[in-house]
Structure formats: C-alpha cells, structure tokens
C-alpha cells in the first residue's frame, strides 16, 4: 500500500512539472515577434494562418499569427468574456448578424483605410457590406459566405418524371413538383419519400431559410426606415403556403417543424427528402456522405415578386478595438484576401469565395454547382438590426407554433410583429 502511494506521489510530482513546463511551450517565439490571435469557426482559416506565417518569415517580418477555432455556438460567449477581460482577439471572423450590436458598443476598429486600398472592393458582395459599417465607417468586411438555397436530389426528379435541370422557380411550380415527388412506394399508407422538409428548433433557421420565401412574395420584416412591417398579407400568405404543404397537400412531414438542421441534412442524405433547405456549406460533406446523389441547386421559389431571393449570411472579418497590434492585424487581413491564399485554401473545399473576380478558378470548374451559387449570391439580402438575436425568438415561437397547428396563422404573424416592434423600442 505504501509503495503504491509512493509511486502515485511521484507520478503527481512528474505531472505537475510537465504542466509547468508545457505552459511555456508556446512562448518560445522570438522576443520581438508580434503575435496576433485569429478567431474563426471555420478550420480553413487555419491554413491561411499557416501561409501567412510562412510568408512573414520569408519576408523577414516579425509577425506571427495564432489560430483559435471557436465553434459557432460559443462565438458570442467567449467574445463577451474576452472583451470583459480586455483580451479580445486581434482578428475575429464572426457571424455577420452579430456585427450591428458589437459595432454599436465599440468592440471593433475602423478599417476603412484598408478597404479603400482594396483593388477588388467591387467584387465583394454588396448586400452584406452595410452590416459591417456604421456612420460611413467600415468595421468589418465579408469574408466567409453562406447563402441559403434549395438542394435537390436529381435522381428523384428523374424518377418522378420531372426535368432535373429545371427546378421549380415559382410557388406554383414548386407545388406541382412536390406532389410528384411525394411517394409511398409500398402502398402501406406510410410516406417513404417526402418532397420537402420544413424547419425548426432554432430561430436563425427561420431567418435564413423562411424569410427569403417572404421576400420572394414581396413581403419584408423591416422597411427602408426600420419600421416593422412583418404583419402583412404577404407574410401571412407565405406562412399559409408552408402550412398547407404539411396539412393540405401533405408533401412535407409535420415532424420536420421540430427538426434541427442536422436532422434535415440526415434525412436528405438518407433519401427521405427530395428537396432540402441547405446552402453552399453542404456541398463538401454531401460529396462524402452521399457520393451517389446528383445534387441540384435552386433558388427559393418566388411568388408575387419578380425576383428570387436568398439570405446572404456567413462571417465577416474584423479587428477588435482591444487589439494591441492593429497594424499587424491589418497586414493579416490584407493577406487573407490575397488571390493565392483564397484560391489555395477555400476554393478546393468548395467554399464560396468573397471575391467574385476569383470565381473563374480551376477548382470551381470541376463542380458545376459553384456557378449556380455565384448566380444565387447576386440575389442575396442581409437585413441589418441591432437586436438580431432577440428578434429571432418571437419568429421561432410564433411561426413554429403556427406550423405546428397550435396558433392560427393570422394571430401568429400579428403577435410576432407586435413583439418585434416592442423589442425594437
């Protein structure tokens, strides 16, 4: 017994010393090196960080970047904690919907000067720029793009007698296609293949995938001056259409209103759904998870409006106001927009590059869908609001409630609009 204690004690001493030793493992950088921290939820920027470090070494500059991966769900919590402690990261590639609030509290540095110098500034998505700016100054630039689209299974289209190269563009066409795509193969009364899946469990999904349908119907959440105009016949009509898809035409399962994005993705890969609300970010994983599926991409269908819309989402890159190395951070950002950097890191992963002047690259040529995404990007809209997250909630509560047949549609839209108006005060 005593021997065991002695051994364990030695182990303890050893491990304590390892702890102290390793703690300084990272500090072995040269004395005058400026170290900047880069945060992002996307692993790919890590590769840009490596390229940057190499380039800095080659140029003889004493700048080093460290990458830290921040999962989507923890983006805000860790940032708030860091701001409170005064140690916010130098460079932060953050979800764009967070910017209006954080810019308003002074969390970011003005980067209008590097924007002015950018030769490619006109090939950055225009719809997203307002989100990162305030009073004419630019605090964040679009960097990683996510657009909402419909992904559909071309094989299923063929089997249903539909043309896989011309997906539905209007609500009427969508309904016709849905009816053909909903199948009960073995006649047992249970539907084996649904045309469509609705969504739920997180409010962001409604903004990302439902609002474009409202826009395509001529509706909107805010008007040009910021009034809440959600309560409109156009919104009610859209919600009614989605409701009917479940209860009247029975082309989407009721349970899908409770599904997470992961569940919808799983159902699509499992071949349970023909048309799926997804985006460009699904392409690489779909290649691995469903190698035999031919995937088509289409806009959200429109109704009253003349255009189809999509939600322009993603991350914007910025420099926090607590950064002590603003010049080094600016150097990093310039590097991150470099042709080579973007093409060698993001393009092979089929990520949508922020610079449309680079779309004609060798990687995109292999995947025809990228041209579709580029086209869709042109119809991208990004609403701006200081209280994004708070607005999400009534939308989730009331719209989900309506789709679950628990709140009448008119009431849902009216109450939701009222609550949002209250929140904006």
């Amino acid at each position: 017994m005593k021997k065991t204690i002695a051994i364990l004690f030695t182990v303890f001493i050893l491990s304590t010393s390892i702890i102290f030793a390793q703690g300084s493992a990272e500090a072995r950088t040269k004395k005058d090196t400026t170290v900047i921290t880069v945060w992002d939820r996307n692993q790919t920027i890590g590769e840009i960080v490596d390229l940057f470090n190499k380039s800095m070494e080659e140029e003889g500059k004493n700048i080093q970047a460290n990458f830290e991966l921040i999962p989507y769900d923890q983006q805000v919590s860790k940032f708030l904690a860091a701001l409170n402690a005064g140690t916010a990261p130098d460079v932060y590639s953050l979800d764009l919907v967070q910017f209006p609030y954080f810019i308003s509290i002074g969390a970011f540095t003005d980067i209008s000067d590097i924007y002015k110098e950018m030769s490619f500034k006109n090939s950055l998505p225009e719809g997203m720029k307002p989100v990162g700016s305030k009073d004419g100054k630019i605090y964040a630039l679009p960097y990683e793009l996510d657009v909402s689209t419909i992904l559909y299974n071309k094989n299923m289209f063929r089997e249903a007698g539909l043309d896989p190269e011309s997906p539905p563009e209007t609500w009427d066409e969508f309904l016709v296609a849905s009816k053909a795509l909903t199948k009960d193969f073995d006649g047992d009364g249970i539907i084996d293949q649904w045309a469509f899946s609705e969504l739920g469990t997180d409010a962001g999904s409604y903004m990302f995938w439902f609002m474009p349908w409202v826009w395509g119907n001529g509706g909107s959440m805010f008007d040009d001056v910021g009034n809440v105009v959600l309560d409109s016949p156009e919104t009610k009509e859209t919600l009614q259409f989605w409701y009917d898809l479940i209860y009247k035409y029975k082309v989407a399962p009721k349970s899908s209103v409770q599904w997470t994005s992961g569940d919808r993705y799983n159902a699509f890969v499992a071949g349970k759904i023909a048309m799926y609300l997804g985006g460009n970010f699904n392409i690489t994983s779909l290649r691995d998870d469903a190698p035999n599926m031919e995937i088509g991409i289409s806009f959200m269908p429109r109704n009253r409006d003349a255009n189809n819309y999509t939600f322009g989402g993603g991350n914007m890159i910025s420099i926090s106001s607590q950064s002590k190395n603003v010049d080094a951070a600016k150097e990093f950002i310039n590097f991150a927009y470099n042709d080579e950097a973007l093409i060698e890191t993001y393009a092979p992963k089929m990520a949508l590059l922020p610079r449309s002047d680079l779309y004609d690259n060798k990687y995109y040529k292999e995947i025809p869908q990228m041209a579709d995404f580029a086209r869709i990007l042109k119809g991208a809209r990004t609403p701006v609001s200081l209280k994004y997250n708070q607005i999400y909630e009534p939308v989730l509560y009331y719209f989900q409630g309506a789709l679950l047949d628990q709140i009448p549609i008119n009431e849902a839209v009216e109450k939701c609009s009222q609550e949002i108006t209250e929140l904006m005060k």
Partner: protein
Amino acid sequence: MIKQKHYYKKIVITVLFTLIIFVFLFPIYWNIVTAFKNPCEILAYPPKLIPSEWTIYQFNKLLTASNGVFLQFFVNTLIITVSTIFLVLIITIPCSFALAKLPFKGSKIVFILILLIFMVPFQCLLVPLYTLLTKIHLYNTKLGLILIYATFFMPFSIFMLRNAFLQLPQSLFESAILDGANMWKIMTNLYLPLSIPSIVSCIIYLFIETWNDFILSFMFSSSNYVRNIQVGIMNFGKQRFSSDWGIINSGTLIAIIPTIVLFIILQKYYIQGMVSGAVKE
C-alpha cells in the same frame, strides 16, 4: 430432476439478461459501428446494423486532422484529469474528515458554502472566471484548468467522504484517541482504509467529469497544448449546419475507453465486503 430445472432456469435467465444488456447498450453498439463505417453508409436508410465494410477511415481522419493534434489533446486531457484527481483527493480528505469529526466554529458555514458550489450552474460564472484567470495569468494553462476543475468538482468528494466518515462508529474514533494517536494518524491509518469504496467512487466521478468536460476547457484555453479531447471532437466534428458523425463517433469511442478501463480496474475496491473486528465491538 431438480438439477435439470435449475439448469433450464439458469439458461433462461442468462439469455434474458444478455438480451436486456444488448438493448440497453444498443446506443453504444451504434456508436462503435458508426465509427467503423464509411461515410456514405452512416446515414443510409434503412439503417445498416452491420457495416458492409469495417474501415478505420474515420479514425484516420480524426487522428490526422490538423497535423495529428488530436493525440496532443488526449495527452493534455490525461495530464489534467490525473492531476485534478490528485489535487481534489489531497485537499478534500482532510476537509471531509474535519467536517465529520472535528467540528469547529465555522464548520456549518463551510459546509453550506461547499454545498453552494454544487448548486451553481457554472454557465453564469464563465465571464467572471475568465477575467480572474486572465488577471492571475492562468488563462490558457493546464494549471488554471486544474484549479477550476478542482473547485467545481470537489463538493462531490467532500459529501461522499464526509458521509463515509460519519457512518463509521464513534467508538472507533474514541478508542483511537484513547490510544494516543493524533488526528492526522487517525485519519490516514484508520479512516481512510475503511472508506475505500467511497474514495473509489470519488475517483470515478472526478475522472468522468473532468474527462468529459467541454465548456470549461473551451472557455479557458486557446492553445493546442491545453485544450482537451472533447473540445477536439467538437471542433473537428460539428459544423454550424451539419455534423460529421464519423468523427464524432470515432472520437467518442476513443474517449470512453480510458474511463471503462479505469472502472474495470477499480471495481473490486468498492465491493469490499466488510471488515475487521474493529467494527464488531
């Protein structure tokens, strides 16, 4: 005849138990099977109970991601977990003994404070703790994490051990004092050996909690030399709109093995029957 009946009864019970165990452990079975599947099979419908090809593709993907940093995460977690267990045991054994046997003026308050730790959801303490760690230069260090884990997981240990010490008869204590032993000796030579089951339960609890923690490790670390295994799994496996099931499952499988091994080794210690004549008096 009776022997045969007994024999049949045994077989039926064994078969029944095996069935129950299989149903009970089905999610684990699913975890194992998914970890060895090709990506295209993971989400196949109808679900495939047995992979058509057992492959280590997922493990490979996980272990080679970002230049093999997952191994570093594993080592980090091991070091941090073992150190936490040591630290907690070293500080809570005397403390529980004091709370049980050596009442002093503020002992009730101390007990309530420790109880309080257990009642607080650490989500609300994240921001103040982050600032605190930054101020004392322990942010992003193994030591910082160990201290935080120790603080939040020690209440369990204190409750368990205090409980165990209180259950031993007072006569034991009194006769030891009469024999002239001092408090420290009484604690180490008398009470500890009699509380092995509880200590082992503490070890298991501490191991599980520290090994499986995600949020504390994520919030209070940024470098690969400090981050732990769960953070690694989630970082590689979970994207905003979808998850890489292969990685999540293979990572989880790697993660549960040490815990199970620990349990198997320690099993015999808390099934100790009872004891020496010391108690019979």
